[in-house]
């Protein structure tokens, strides 16, 4: 126990310093400040998206390929609210809640299937939304829509907003993962039939998690819309966001609270450095990194930072596995 506490203390100190540095970044003048802020802002938006996927995909192993649906819906809902004249923060919140409610029927549809079938339904839902939004001019049409400027269209505004939301998402994840619900989710990921046999309300647990997950993805989409001030269905509903949500969580560490942040920093850094040189190159590099990580570090980059005495740390599992043949 003491070792764990000491490890935690160190982690807390490191995280505190990093948080302070992140908070101070826009105020203290450093070289490449604007660049760093834009990298971090996108990293934070991606963290939200990745974290929302991580809740279902990481804990319960429900590999959704449709988080772009919630991302895009959130972006458009936020845009609709702000063009009605609502303040940006309120439209973000309304968008998040609206999409969370919308996810209930979606959950009903998706969770009737399992495994790869679930993945395919989620993919189909995102594609349907993309096609419908492209088709109906009153929703958006192919021209897309513009958002009115707000305090969050400035670099500093969106930076602090997304920083705060990222911290909130990490706490939400930790809280959910350690709650009874989180345990149930992990159990569902291990064996769904066994869970329902011992009386876990599998569908209820999954749907309520999807509610939180969809809200989180919607807020990520809303932030994206507030910052870029332009949305088009082909962009926000594209499969790339669904894929990035998965990559961010898997590269960073599937089912771990800080995994999406680590993954998102890497993705965002790659995107900002490689995209100006060769458009699209970052996705290629990302794919290569992902395959490497999946084969070498199946639990993601956070494994590198973890202490071996961590409760669910992958290293511990490896140790056990290595001991077995020796014994």
């Amino acid at each position, binding site marked *: 126990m003491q070792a764990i506490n000491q490890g935690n203390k160190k982690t807390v100190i490191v995280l505190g310093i990093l948080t302070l540095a992140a908070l101070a970044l826009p105020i203290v003048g450093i070289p490449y400040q604007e660049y760093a802020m834009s990298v971090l802002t996108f990293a934070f938006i991606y963290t939200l998206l990745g974290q929302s996927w991580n809740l279902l995909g990481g804990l319960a192993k429900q590999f959704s390929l449709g988080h772009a649906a919630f991302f895009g819906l959130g972006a458009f809902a936020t845009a609709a609210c702000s063009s009605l004249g609502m303040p940006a923060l309120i439209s973000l919140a309304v968008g998040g809640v609206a999409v969370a409610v919308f996810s209930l029927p979606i959950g009903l549809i998706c969770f009737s299937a399992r495994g790869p079938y679930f993945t395919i*339904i989620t993919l189909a839902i995102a*594609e349907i939304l993309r096609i419908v939004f492209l088709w109906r001019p009153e929703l958006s049409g192919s021209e897309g829509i513009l958002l009115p400027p707000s305090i969050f269209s400035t670099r500093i505004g969106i930076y602090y907003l997304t920083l705060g939301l990222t911290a909130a998402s990490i706490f939400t994840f930790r809280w959910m993962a350690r709650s009874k619900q989180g345990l149930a989710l992990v159990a569902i990921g291990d064996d769904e039939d066994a869970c329902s046999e011992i009386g876990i309300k599998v569908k209820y647990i999954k749907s309520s998690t999807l509610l939180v997950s969809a809200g989180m993805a919607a807020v990520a989409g809303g932030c994206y819309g507030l910052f870029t001030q332009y949305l088009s269905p082909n962009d926000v509903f594209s499969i790339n966001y669904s894929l990035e949500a998965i990559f961010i969580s898997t590269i960073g560490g599937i089912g771990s609270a800080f995994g999406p942040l680590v993954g998102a920093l890497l993705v965002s850094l790659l995107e900002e450095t490689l995209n100006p040189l060769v458009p699209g190159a970052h996705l290629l590099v990302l794919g290569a990194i992902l395959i490497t990580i999946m084969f070498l570090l199946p639990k993601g980059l956070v494994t590198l930072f973890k202490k071996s005495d961590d409760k669910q740390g992958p290293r511990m599992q490896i140790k056990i596995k290595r001991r077995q043949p020796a014994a």
Partner: protein
Amino acid sequence: MDYSTLAMQLFLTGIFLSSLYILVTFGLTMIFGVMEIVNFAHASFAILGGYACLLAVTSLGMDPFVALVPVVAFMALVGWLTFEFFARYTLDVGDAHVVHYYALLLIISNVLALIFGLDYKFVPSGLGYSQIELGPFKYPLLKFLVAIISLATVAGLSLYLKKSVIGKKIRAVSQSKESAEIMGIDSLKIRRITWIIGVSSAGLMGALVGLVNPFSPYAGTTYLIVAFSVAILGGMGSLFGTIVAGFIIGMTESLFSLFLPSQISPVVAFVFIIGVLMVKPEGLFSRA
């Protein structure tokens, strides 16, 4: 236009769509049956085939229909390489394999985007708008040929699986890997062959689609979902189911094109598949 002409048009368009859908799903469902892998990169192989055909026609000046032969050979090579350096290592990772295949999808589509750019391209067929006369009806010759080629390929593949020794081994592994291994079948070899057949048939489908519709490096998603729709409706791993389901979805889409604007016609297949999965989560003709 009188009703019989219209009905014939819809029927032929239905056959045309179905033939392509069956061809692309065939590989997907075979790979699932034998390797227990849901190949999310399947449609990217199709797009890769489209670009290979484009290169063969525009750079080497080949006739597009002759070019299909080297395209299939090239895709077989791609299949062999991806199996040896990638797919064989994903056989025992369980459900997480979907992530590996997303990554493969990302790599293929972005390599294509880097080489060819994001614009929509199509393979010049040289046939233009020439029509074929089928009794009193007229139909675009190009689409007719494409449908014939893909149906012939599907028929050939089915026959191969039914009659040849390798085909029988493939079906054996698909039914039960353990029993097949006990009977002395080299399951890794069978999986390699299945993977190569799957990838090449996807590439052929992509080349054929490229003759008819414009495509871009990211256009695979639509075909991916259609292929999944067919595969699920037919029951993953069931080849007979795939053929029936391909016709059902192709015909339905053709019929709905009467009432719906063309840009939302793929939605039909998606809604169809969601409906089927809600009612029967294992597909209509699932393997027992």
